């Protein structure tokens, strides 16, 4: 054992740490023969005693008692809040579930309605072609007062069924007056094949009488026809003599009895 080796062991020796008995005895034997190493050992032992005194002095120290109360309170707050948060998250999860379920049901309902609508559409087309089918939109007389009131669009279906059955046509709201025509058609889209980008005259009664009154009683159907331009003269329209032999388009309003009731010219 030399001083360097002793220096490596002196702390362990002074602290009473476990070491091999032979090494310990050699170190102690060296300190007995070396004054400096003995002093080092004594200093280390004093330091160890000082540290042990300090440790013993502080051994009983604890955090203040109120800290436990604070921590308990914090713990309670945390664990009360946690279940609430868990419940609210559960509620929100359930809410999301129900929202998804309702959305899915709506989607299914809309899909079924769409399929039903598409299956119904061809039947309506057939009905339109039927000679007994009345005009899909009522042809109502122009308001003499000239007031302009809006007309709600007709609902395809129920009113037409009653009309076809020969019942009194349902009462309609006061019609909107067309400035150009004495009769108003709603919706215009239903005459799209005839009226798109077309200019038409007013319906003029054929064979006398009031066309509006006829239509109100019976309803009718509009048929697109071609006439000789010379026919315009019969209704008082000017005719270009150079195009005298040409044809013009006209819509003939045919009553439920199959008789032509009114006509208008279309350009």
């Amino acid at each position, binding site marked *: 054992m030399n001083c360097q080796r002793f220096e490596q062991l002196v702390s362990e020796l002074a602290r009473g740490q476990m070491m091999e008995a032979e090494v310990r005895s050699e170190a102690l034997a060296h300190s007995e023969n070396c004054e400096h190493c003995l002093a080092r050992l004594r200093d280390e032992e004093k330091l160890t005693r000082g540290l042990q005194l300090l440790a013993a002095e502080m051994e009983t120290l604890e955090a203040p008692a109120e800290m436990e109360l604070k921590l*308990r309170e914090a713990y309670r707050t945390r664990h009360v809040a946690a279940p609430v948060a868990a419940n609210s998250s559960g509620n929100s999860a359930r809410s999301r579930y129900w929202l998804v379920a309702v959305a899915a049901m709506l989607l299914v309902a809309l899909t079924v309605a769409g399929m039903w609508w598409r299956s119904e559409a061809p039947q309506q087309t057939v009905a339109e072609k039927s000679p007994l089918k009345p005009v899909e939109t009522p042809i109502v007389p122009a308001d003499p007062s000239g007031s302009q009131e809006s007309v709600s669009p007709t609902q395809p279906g129920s009113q037409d069924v009653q009309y076809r059955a020969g019942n009194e046509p349902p009462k309609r709201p006061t019609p909107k007056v067309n400035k150009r025509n004495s009769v108003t058609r709603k919706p215009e889209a239903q005459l799209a094949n005839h009226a798109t980008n077309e200019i038409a005259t007013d319906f003029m009664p054929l064979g006398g009488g009031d066309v509006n009154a006829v239509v109100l009683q019976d309803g009718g159907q509009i048929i697109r026809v071609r006439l000789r331009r010379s026919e315009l003269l019969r209704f008082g329209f000017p005719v270009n003599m150079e195009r005298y032999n040409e044809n013009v388009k006209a819509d003939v309003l045919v009553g439920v009895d199959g008789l032509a009731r009114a006509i208008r010219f279309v350009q």
Partner: protein
Amino acid sequence: MTLKNQFSDNELLRLMLAGDEDALAELYRRRQPAVYRFALQMSGSKSIAEDVTQEVFLFLMREGHVFDPERGALSAFLLGVARNYVLRRLRVDQLLSPLGDDGEEDGAGLQASIDLCPLDDLTRAETIETVRRAVLSLPPKYREVVVLCELQDVSYVETADILGCAIGTVRSRLHRARALLLTKLRPAESVADADSASVKSARCFA
């Protein structure tokens, strides 16, 4: 409640995380003294020690699930958390403290007590106070091994676990820390004597 003191730390932690307040109380009573003392011995301040102790157990409430029993004891885990909080707090306080405060308190105050009272002649209370000041004047990396190994009587293995270093590092740091403490505690005359003795000892190979 009465049976909680028979549970291990790990069982108490599990119960605490499951919402058992009594488990928290038992765990706190069992482990807070070591945490508090460690923080006090590291910082020398009761207010810091209280704050750190509170933070450690709040952390345990919040993040207790991160504790892995396979990696060490809960007591070591708590001391490791306390160490992090203490070092953070000391860094902040060092940044906020006016320049010259540390030197005045640690150097002059300690030196005065040493000059007046060599270690041999100190009364018990004076010895404790002198050693306490000497420990507090150590750099943190030496202070923490002294606090853990000498004052808290934690084994080298656990200390290495707490500090996140090798056992050999713990040994060498402790050795160096004790040497620094002796230097601080030795009166100026003794230091001179020791220096001359060390010169003599260089020739001593008995």
